[in-house]
């Protein structure tokens, strides 16, 4: 087996006139957790579908676990797990029946499929609901069962396509914890997401995807450094004091402070973090400006995206809608 769990070189995929992937390159080392980040329509799902043998590629080359996806799809299928955008489950069957069915289709045999189902129910905290119909499951429980189903063979590489889309915060946390547990066991994970904080939370590498190609590929911290250092942020009680506050912030900031009227907020990049914070806090107090909140924060991945593509993830989505 090669060093890379996933290798994509110049993948092209067209849907009619539309270029879904246009020279997609990616190298995911074994044991890594890669986040594939991008707005709707950037090509994330197409990339996952090609790598999981669901869709043929038009050009380029893809290897998963060192095996060519296009020529030996059956071999690839023995080594991967996929949890797609929907919880791909039979809702009439119980959780246990679902896992047993998929286990038998993975050719585990009746006994081993049953034993594996029990193991996974335990691991994903679904023992109590095991014999209830999936229909009665909450969104988070469905995703957990879906993850369990994708783990039946203990795959080398796990693909998660927007694993928390449509979940409430609680369900999201449930899924995040399940994913972290898998990662701790050394599974290589490629996950796609349009939630920037999700990539930040789970991934140790992030590839930013825009219009069918990877435009940045680095650690979350390095990506943040890419757009400059930390920022100081002040929220004032009275929006009328915003100009005065901006003037104070400007003294320590490395560029012109940005004023956000609706949030009554002033923020600006700073170099000497602690000195800037103490200076601003003291001056504002001396000047009698009432402060709601003051702090230093690292830039968000949203800002990274804006910096890299010239547009925010939201804008892209609005254009589509």
């Amino acid at each position: 087996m090669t060093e890379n769990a996933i290798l994509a070189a110049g993948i092209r995929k067209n849907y009619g006139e539309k270029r879904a992937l246009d020279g997609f390159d990616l190298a995911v080392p074994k044991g890594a957790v890669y986040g594939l980040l991008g707005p709707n329509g950037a090509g994330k799902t197409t990339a996952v579908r090609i790598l999981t043998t669901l869709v043929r590629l038009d050009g380029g080359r893809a290897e998963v676990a060192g095996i060519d996806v296009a020529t030996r799809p059956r071999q690839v299928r023995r080594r991967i797990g996929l949890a797609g955008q929907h919880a791909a489950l039979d809702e009439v069957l119980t959780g246990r029946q679902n896992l047993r069915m998929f286990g038998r289709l993975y050719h585990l045999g009746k006994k081993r499929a049953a034993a594996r189902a029990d193991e996974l129910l335990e691991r994903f905290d679904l023992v109590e609901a095991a014999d209830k119909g999936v229909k009665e499951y909450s969104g988070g429980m469905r995703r957990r069962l879906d993850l369990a189903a994708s783990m039946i063979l203990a795959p080398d590489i796990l693909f998660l396509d927007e694993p928390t889309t449509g979940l409430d915060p609680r369900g999201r946390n449930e899924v995040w914890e399940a994913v972290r547990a898998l990662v701790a066991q050394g599974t290589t994970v490629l996950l796609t997401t349009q939630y920037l904080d999700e990539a930040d939370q789970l991934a140790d590498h992030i590839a930013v995807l825009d219009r069918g190609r990877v435009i940045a590929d680095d650690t979350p911290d390095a990506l943040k450094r890419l757009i400059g250092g930390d920022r100081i942020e002040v929220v004032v009680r009275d929006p009328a004091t915003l100009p005065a506050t901006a003037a104070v912030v400007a003294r320590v900031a490395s560029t012109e402070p940005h004023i956000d009227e609706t949030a009554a907020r002033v923020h600006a990049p700073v170099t000497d973090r602690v000195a800037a914070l103490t200076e601003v806090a003291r001056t504002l107090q001396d000047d009698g400006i009432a402060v709601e909140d003051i702090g230093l924060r690292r830039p968000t991945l949203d800002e990274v995206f804006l910096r890299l593509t010239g547009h925010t993830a939201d804008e892209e989505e609005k254009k589509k809608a």
Partner: protein
Amino acid sequence: MTALTKTPADETLRERFRWAVADCWTIVLRGLTHYIRQPSNIAWQLGFPIVSVLLFGYVFGSAMSVPGGGDYREFLMPGMFGMTMAMGFMNTSYVVVYDSTRGVTDRFRSMPMAPSAVVTGRGVGDLIAATVDLTVLALTALAIGWRSSGGVLGTLAAFGLLLLLRFSLIWLGVLLGLLVPNEEAAGSLFALAFPFAMISSAFVAPSLMPDWLGTIAMWNPVSATVTASRELFGNPAAVGDTWVEQNALLMAVIWPIVLTAIFLPLAVRRYQHLSR
């Protein structure tokens, strides 16, 4: 030379076949588990034919006549069996669209299972379900006085032809299930299934319809199966003197072959189209 290349290939082929059968059976079991977990589904599926029997047999029945004589209810029962088989493809479509909209089809396709099992399992499962449907309907028919005078062989042959029609329409069901976008659209396939089943000899002899409609009805595959099964059951068949009506038994075999020859390749192509 040949020995070198042949042995492993044969192994793989046999193994593949074994898994194709095993995976097919796993999918069949899944379908049967659905019936066990939702027994009310059988009642819903049979509700329509049973209500139709009551409606046609008792409400319209007195106004119905069978050309050439014979009891209308005797005439009606094979028609009801045929209608149920003809409309069964909607169940197939429904399950296919359910699986593809929920990503279950994609999960199957990303797994190392035999790709054919998704369809063969569907087919075998549907035939088992259709056999259960026919059994319940036959018992209902017996209860309201229908009898087969065709002997054991003739009766079995008639049921066999009915199942053959259901089998040949599985591929149409798979194809439509892959073409429609969602479950609601699958439900509206009723608008297709209803005239397909009704514009036939199932309830009224085609000779009593306007000429053009009668001709369509005569050539409807459902008519061939229904008329053939009437003849085999020894029920009044009200056969006209056109060639297609005179050769219902032959057509009841030919039509399913033709339907399979058309829709099986189309369904397979559509399934392969998923990976485009």
